[in-house]
């Protein structure tokens, strides 16, 4: 058990242990609620990490895919009467499929143009959901009732925890795989990756589809937990939130999305006491993070650790 391993796995195991017993260590119902939402949003942030942190494509459409997952679940259970789990799986697959269609269009553009296209798509989805009364219930929204099993808050907490771990696992596997190599190649030097035989468009679309599936999953869980849906579930403001969570936590890192989402979401919840001013404070913090910690909290910690380890080695070697 080297120092390196202890750091890598020790923190994770400690956090996991805490997470397993969280609902029973005497936190308030409100706190648990906030944590469940943070968990759900961290899944969406992890989805953004795959397309943005690993593949370098900034998507402002994750809010739309969150909403498509949520509404997909609602429509499939309420209107089509599907079993909850089937509906959830199908909703995620539909979201991934929409991601494919959008990707085929959007990846004809690059850089800032791609970002604008994704933002436009998000806007379109929001407007469609808001106005297509028959399908979505319009502004009135829809109710969702999940299985009896998840009527209780604790049960939903463990469901979300399970999916957070699953998503983390998927991200971990991607980051260590040949597929992940392709993603990073596209992120770091697209023309070179092209010249090295990597199909750029195909790689981007695969990353995007995985990302959309997971965003849809987050949407399903969000719908289940709230018990109710409205067009704000697909709002483009959600997309900006995910970007912020990811940047603060650390894009391209494994734990960055979770750290960033929990940090920002919990901080904003706690600062509700000072009203709208919390956004001002938060804005300042965000600017500081982007300037001084461009690699986010996790990225910054990693660099710090490297410096400490480096100087320690230098001492030992001397």
């Amino acid at each position, binding site marked *: 058990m080297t120092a390196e391993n202890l750091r890598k796995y020790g923190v994770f195991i400690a956090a996991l242990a805490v997470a397993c017993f969280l609902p029973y260590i005497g936190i308030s119902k409100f706190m648990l609620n906030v944590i469940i939402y943070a968990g759900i949003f961290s899944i969406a942030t992890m989805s953004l990490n795959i397309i943005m942190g690993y593949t370098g494509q900034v998507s402002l459409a994750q809010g739309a895919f969150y909403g498509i997952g949520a509404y997909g679940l609602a429509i499939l259970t309420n209107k089509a009467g599907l079993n909850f789990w089937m509906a959830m799986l199908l909703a995620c697959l539909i979201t991934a499929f929409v991601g494919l269609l959008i990707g085929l269009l959007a990846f004809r553009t690059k850089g800032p143009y791609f970002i604008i296209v994704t933002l436009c798509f998000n806007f379109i989805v929001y407007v469609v959901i808001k106005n297509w009364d028959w399908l979505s219930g319009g502004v009135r929204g829809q109710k969702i009732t999940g299985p009896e099993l998840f009527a209780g808050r604790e049960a939903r907490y463990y469901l979300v925890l399970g999916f957070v771990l699953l998503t983390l696992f998927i991200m971990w596997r991607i980051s260590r*795989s*040949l597929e992940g190599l392709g993603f990073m190649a596209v992120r770091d*030097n697209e*023309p*070179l990756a092209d*010249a*090295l*035989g990597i199909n*750029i468009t195909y790689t981007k679309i695969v990353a995007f589809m995985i990302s959309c599936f997971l965003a849809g999953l987050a949407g399903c869980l969000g719908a289940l937990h709230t018990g109710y849906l409205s067009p704000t579930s697909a709002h483009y403001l959600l997309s900006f939130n995910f970007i912020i969570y990811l940047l603060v936590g650390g894009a391209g890192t494994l734990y960055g999305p979770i750290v960033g989402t929990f940090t920002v979401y919990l901080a904003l919840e706690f600062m509700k006491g000072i009203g709208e001013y919390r956004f001002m404070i938060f804005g300042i913090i965000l600017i500081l993070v982007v300037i001084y910690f461009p690699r986010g909290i996790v990225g910054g910690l990693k660099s710090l650790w490297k410096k400490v380890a480096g100087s320690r080695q230098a001492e030992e070697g001397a």
Partner: protein
Amino acid sequence: MDGIDMKVEAGSIVGIVGPNGAGKTTLFNLMSGQLKPTSGRITFEGVDITGSKPFRIARLGMGRTFQNTSLFDRLPLKINMAIARRMRTQSGFFDSLVPLREREEEADVARRAGEALEFVGLAGSAESIAGSLPQIAKKRLAVGMALVGEPKLVLLDEPTGGVGAGDISGMIELICQIKDRGVAVCVIEHKMRMVMGLSDRIVVLNFGRKIACGTPEEVSGDPEVIKAYLGSGYSA
């Protein structure tokens, strides 16, 4: 480019020379797919690759380096190499989740990456970050990355650009070793003595046109070439 008509034969080294702006890198960009020709055809190993995308041409077996030494600067050397080998693997997203084929291919990629690093003499720096290397190491890494995918032809664009005089002979030796392995080489160079000594044939470009083609001796004696580029002071 204007009326380029040339062939590169297997197992030979063809040097591309010409004054600045003659169109040498443009020629490479046309061959490896970064540019589409407005007329004419390009075939590679019997396949018509006119207008094909770079990644398809790379997969057919054409490797290439760039004048500005394009690398994955933030990543370690062995990862740079692994990425260069990625096109020869089949594992996709689902393989990353259920890593049966993935494990095998990962092991193979690691092995080939190691071999390629040894071939270019960088095995000791496998963990170093590419951006931190000196210029000669970066150039050698780029050559290794062009080779690890087992190409039939490599295009080397100024492999000794910005390289110190003491390291040039090492690069020459490396290029000869590439030829010994049966890979055809097309090399753009400004260092006349180097490219004349290295190449089996020379193609001279000026203003986008081929003004001479032949052995180094034939070309250095060609009055057109002397007039355009070598200057009257050069003697073979």
